[in-house]
């Protein structure tokens, strides 16, 4: 049973250890951004809840600063939660087909949610306070 290949030679090319670190960094960078964005978001939610009416919300979103920050908040949140939910699925779901289906569903929900939110917010922001 002589096997002249070293353990390293057998392991080479099998593992991932190539792209995984991207998720690790992305998760933390988006977390750092969200610390500030979410605090601003809570502050804004208080303001929007106080006025409550449609016109005030449109006027608020007509401000380029508010529109930019809200789109950034939603985008960073959807990106962050895509990675987070993928980790949860990978931790608990071991059947390959179910795991793949859930990971893809997670992608669709997160990118779909981010796109929908951005388009809706931009449409209102570009239309301005009127109509």
């Amino acid at each position, binding site marked *: 049973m002589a096997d002249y290949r070293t353990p390293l030679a057998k392991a080479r090319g099998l593992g991932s250890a190539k792209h995984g670190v991207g998720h690790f960094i992305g998760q933390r960078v988006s977390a*750092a951004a969200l610390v500030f964005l979410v605090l601003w978001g809570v502050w804004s939610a208080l303001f929007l809840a*106080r006025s409550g009416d449609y016109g005030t919300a449109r006027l608020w979103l007509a401000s380029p600063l508010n529109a930019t920050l809200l789109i950034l908040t939603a985008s960073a949140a959807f990106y962050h*939660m895509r990675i*987070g*939910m993928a980790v949860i699925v990978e931790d608990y779901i*071991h*059947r390959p087909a179910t795991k793949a289906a859930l990971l893809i569903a997670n992608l669709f929900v997160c990118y779909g949610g981010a796109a929908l939110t951005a388009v*809706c917010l931009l449409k209102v922001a570009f239309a301005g306070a009127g109509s």
Partner: protein
Amino acid sequence: MAEVSPAAQEANQRVRPLSPHLQVWRWHVTMTASILHRATGVALYGGALILAGWALALVSGPDAYGDYMGALASIPGRVVLFGVTVSVFFHLANGVRHLFWDCGKGFDLRTADLTAWIALAFGFVAAVAVWAAAALSGAL
């Protein structure tokens, strides 16, 4: 012989050792913080979808917006939003804790315990403070 879940065998035809599970360990506040970090993360998944719904309601016109804000202001809506608020602040505080760990700081038991309690307290206190501010400013 330890029981092995079917899933652990099915994935790769081998019986793999599993790490000791929750009930084996003495309760520790760091466990609570860890579990709640994941749970509040899932809750905030819903919170982000509520935000997407808000954007959709806003672009759909005054009636849709009024209905959506009405649903959020109802009792079940407020319970959900309060839960989202607690989740936001706990996940934020505990997330900062994670960022320090990623820098290699805060791993010793005393610090880990203390910061877990701080994150838990911050989650509830900040949420209550925000809702008190909302009540005082007439947002409720």
